[in-house]
């Protein structure tokens, strides 16, 4: 059913309802009027019924009067008058014809009673005259008495008739009174309905007025419709181009003219194709512009072409309609250059959001998570759909106090911003430290709509900071310990207290001396480590013969080994083990390894030093027969200040830095350092350096290998 049909139906129903309403109203009015006039009639009737009483009573008089008054002739005359009065009153009743009350039975009863009364009254008067005649004639008492007796009997019958007439009158009176009451009630009901009608009528009138007013406005609008339509079509933001079935342009609105740079006249007779980039024309031709069609013809994106040949992105909609029998196609054209541009911007923003290494979390103003990026998932372990709608407190580690969060929200509320370090918890329960930036996002009216949290995991940074702090704490402890000894022993000597005991004095002097040496070694080692780590240590790369290097180092450490009752045996020979290295640094490494071996060897122990070829590397091995490396310490051995038994450190004079320095040097030379330990039997520390190639002997080659060495060393 279309709109028009619906309107027709609505008007039809409304008309029928109004007709029914009028019929009802008129019916009601007529019935009220009927009730009204009948009520008047019945009231008059009731009055007339009342008026019967007196004449009726008079009819009964002759019988009584005659016994006291013997003037029969006068009585006869009076009776005639009474009868006439009665008949007049009775006759008035017959004039009330409109009432619906049926009193005909009463009328007949009344008339019968009246007839009987008349005849009886006449008989009584006759008897009275008869008795008078008898009395005047001197008749005997018996005759007179007989006449009197008959008169009395007749009068008794009169009484009966009289009574029956009275009953009739009273009955009529009662019926009429009841009718009056009924009519009154009916009239009241009618008046009530009238009030309802008045209200309905008033309401309907008001409604009609409103509708009428609207209709008249619409009417006015319709009158100026066609001019208005033209103005509207010209001023819509979309371009409108109508095309006939052959694709020839019929008209353009002003927006379309501006969009394409033509005027309607200059385009007349041209094809719509001229508004489209040639490459896009096939797409246009494939479109289907049937009304209601969901095919490509609706909302296709094409490249439009302006008069000057410049191109722009446009969205095209087409609808085929029929105007006065001939089909036309209405094209709605939209310049979507700006939309495309913002789509691209949004696309870029989305790409950044998806690919940045910073975790991003967006919540609504109530703190419910709306969106997270892959980096957030990578950091927290929570997939986006796991946290959607949740409160970010699922990430809380419990390591921040309530006050911390209060201060954070206070800052966000006041400045719209907060940043700082915060410890959160990943999905797997692991706590991590992150740097967090929270910004409130506000709409045009300044209302907060979202909060954006940008975060990156700084656990590693914190761990390395912690390591640095620990290193500093350890260094300061390591430096303080010998200083305490030096200061303590010198103070005691200075006080003169131990003067009486030369051995004690000597002991204190030895302590001071040893600790001074230890301090020097420590400072040297710490500086070496710092230099290597900051890559400030210079390496002078030259070809080095490892055999010669080992012999020199062994010789240099032989004296030291003797102090511990240990012997060093080198089994190298001249095997031409050439590597590219810094001789001084390699001596430093060898000395470290040798002194470690010496310190951990039993008395009379023998340390073996050898060089072997290990594929592309020369391996230098230092083997001792010391207690070996405990399993628990193997992973720690190259770390700074690591010593399996720290009490040894002082006994044996190590700093705990030798191996980590050695490892750093060998790493820088592109080699590797390691150990094999058989606890209780022997321990072998070794380092491997790449076998030197012939062409490395030049400085240029050395430089090149240094570069490759650095690259090789970097993954460490």
């Amino acid at each position: 059913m279309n709109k028009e049909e619906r309107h027709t139906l609505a008007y039809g129903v409304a008309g029928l309802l109004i007709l029914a309403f009028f019929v009802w109203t008129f019916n009601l009015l007529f019935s009220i009027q009927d009730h009204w006039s009948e009520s008047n009639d019945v009231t008059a009737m009731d009055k007339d019924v009342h008026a019967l009483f007196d004449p009726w009573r008079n009819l009964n008089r002759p019988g009584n009067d005659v016994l006291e008054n013997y003037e029969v002739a006068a009585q006869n005359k009076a009776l005639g008058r009474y009868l006439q009065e009665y008949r007049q009153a009775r006759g008035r009743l017959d004039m009330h014809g409109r009432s619906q009350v049926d009193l005909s039975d009463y009328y007949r009863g009344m008339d019968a009673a009246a007839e009987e009364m008349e005849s009886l009254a006449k008989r009584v008067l006759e008897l009275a005259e008869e008795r008078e005649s008898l009395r005047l004639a001197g008749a005997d008492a018996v005759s007179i008495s007989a006449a009197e007796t008959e008169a009395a009997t007749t009068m008794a019958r009169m009484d009966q008739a009289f009574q029956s007439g009275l009953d009739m009158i009273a009955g009529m009176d009662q019926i009429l009174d009841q009718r009056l009451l009924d009519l009154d009630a009916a009239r009241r009901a009618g008046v009530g309905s009238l009030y309802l009608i008045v209200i309905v009528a008033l309401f309907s009138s008001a409604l009609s007025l409103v509708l009428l007013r609207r209709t008249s406005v619409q009417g006015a609008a319709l009158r100026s419709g066609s001019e208005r339509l033209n103005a509207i079509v010209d001023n819509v933001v979309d371009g409108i181009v109508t095309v006939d079935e052959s694709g020839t342009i019929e008209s353009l609105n002003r927006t379309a003219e501006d969009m394409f740079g033509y005027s309607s006249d200059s385009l007349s007779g041209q094809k719509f194709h001229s508004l489209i980039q040639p490459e896009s024309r096939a797409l246009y031709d494939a479109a289907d512009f049937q009304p209601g069609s969901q095919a490509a013809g609706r909302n296709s994106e094409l490249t439009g072409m302006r008069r000057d040949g410049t191109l722009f992105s446009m969205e095209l909609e087409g609808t085929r309609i029929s105007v006065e029998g001939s089909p036309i196609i209405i094209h709605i054209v939209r310049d979507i250059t700006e939309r495309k541009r913002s789509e691209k911007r949004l696309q870029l923003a989305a790409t950044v959001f998806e690919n940045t290494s910073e975790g991003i979390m967006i919540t609504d103003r109530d703190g419910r998570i709306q969106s997270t990026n892959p980096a957030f998932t990578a950091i927290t372990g929570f997939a986006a759909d796991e946290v959607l709608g949740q409160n970010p407190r699922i990430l809380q580690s419990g390591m921040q106090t309530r006050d911390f969060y209060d201060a954070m929200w206070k800052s966000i509320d006041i400045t719209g911003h907060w940043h700082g370090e915060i410890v959160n918890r990943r999905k797997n329960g692991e706590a991590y430290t992150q740097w967090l930036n929270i910004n409130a996002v506000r709409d045009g009216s300044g209302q907060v709509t979202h909060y954006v949290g940008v975060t990156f995991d700084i656990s590693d940074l914190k761990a390395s900071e912690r390591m640095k702090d620990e290193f500093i704490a350890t260094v300061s402890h390591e430096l303080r310990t010998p200083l305490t000894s030096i200061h303590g022993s010198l103070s005691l000597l200075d006080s003169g207290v131990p003067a009486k005991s030369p051995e004690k004095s000597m002991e204190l002097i030895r302590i001071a001396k040893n600790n001074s040496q230890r301090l020097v070694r420590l400072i040297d080692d710490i500086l070496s480590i710092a230099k290597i780590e900051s890559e400030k240590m210079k390496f002078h790369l030259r070809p080095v013969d490892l055999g010669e290097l080992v012999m020199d180092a062994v010789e240099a450490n032989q004296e030291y080994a003797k102090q511990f009752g240990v012997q060093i045996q080198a089994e190298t020979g001249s095997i031409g083990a050439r590597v590219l290295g810094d001789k001084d640094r390699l001596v430093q490494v060898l000395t470290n390894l040798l002194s470690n071996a010496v310190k951990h060897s039993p008395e009379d122990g023998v340390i073996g030093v050898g060089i072997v070829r290990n594929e592309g590397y020369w391996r230098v091995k230092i083997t001792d027969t010391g207690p070996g490396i405990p399993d628990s310490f193997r992973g720690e051995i190259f770390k700074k200040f690591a010593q399996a038994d720290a009490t040894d450190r002082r006994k044996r004079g190590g700093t705990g830095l030798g191996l980590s320095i050695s490892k750093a040097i060998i790493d820088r030379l592109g080699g590797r350092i390691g150990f094999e330990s058989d606890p209780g039997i022997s321990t072998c520390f070794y380092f491997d350096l790449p076998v030197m190639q012939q062409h490395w002997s030049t400085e240029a080659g050395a430089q090149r290998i240094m570069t490759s060495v650095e690259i090789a060393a970097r993954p460490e």
Partner: protein
Amino acid sequence: MSDEALQRILYVEDDADIRKIVAMSLEMVGEYSVAACGSCADALEVVDDFDPDLLLLDVMMPEVDGPATLRALRRRASAADAPAVFITAKVQAVDMEEYQRLGVFDVIVKPFDPMALSDRIGQIWQQYRSDGHDDAG
């Protein structure tokens, strides 16, 4: 054995040189009897025979540190009630709180003056006595 005077100090320190200096200082300046031990194990070996009046402990020691050494010593009747003094460079607020929880009576900060050390120990002892610990030793 006097009820009042401090005589025997059980001293645990892993650094041999510092151990010698402190022991010398306490013996020669303060004229105390000192049992100087290099580790918790050494201390547990001598504590019952030595019957110390006071425990003087280094904090940063390898394997068993000062607090653990104190707990181990407290399980021995001979050292259960002796006042404990830590001699350490670790004196940050958190460290001090921990020492307090352990029931450490006082802390001597490293580096210390060996000539003043005995006096300091003597003062700590007096303080301990005046706090009402009459049954010490």
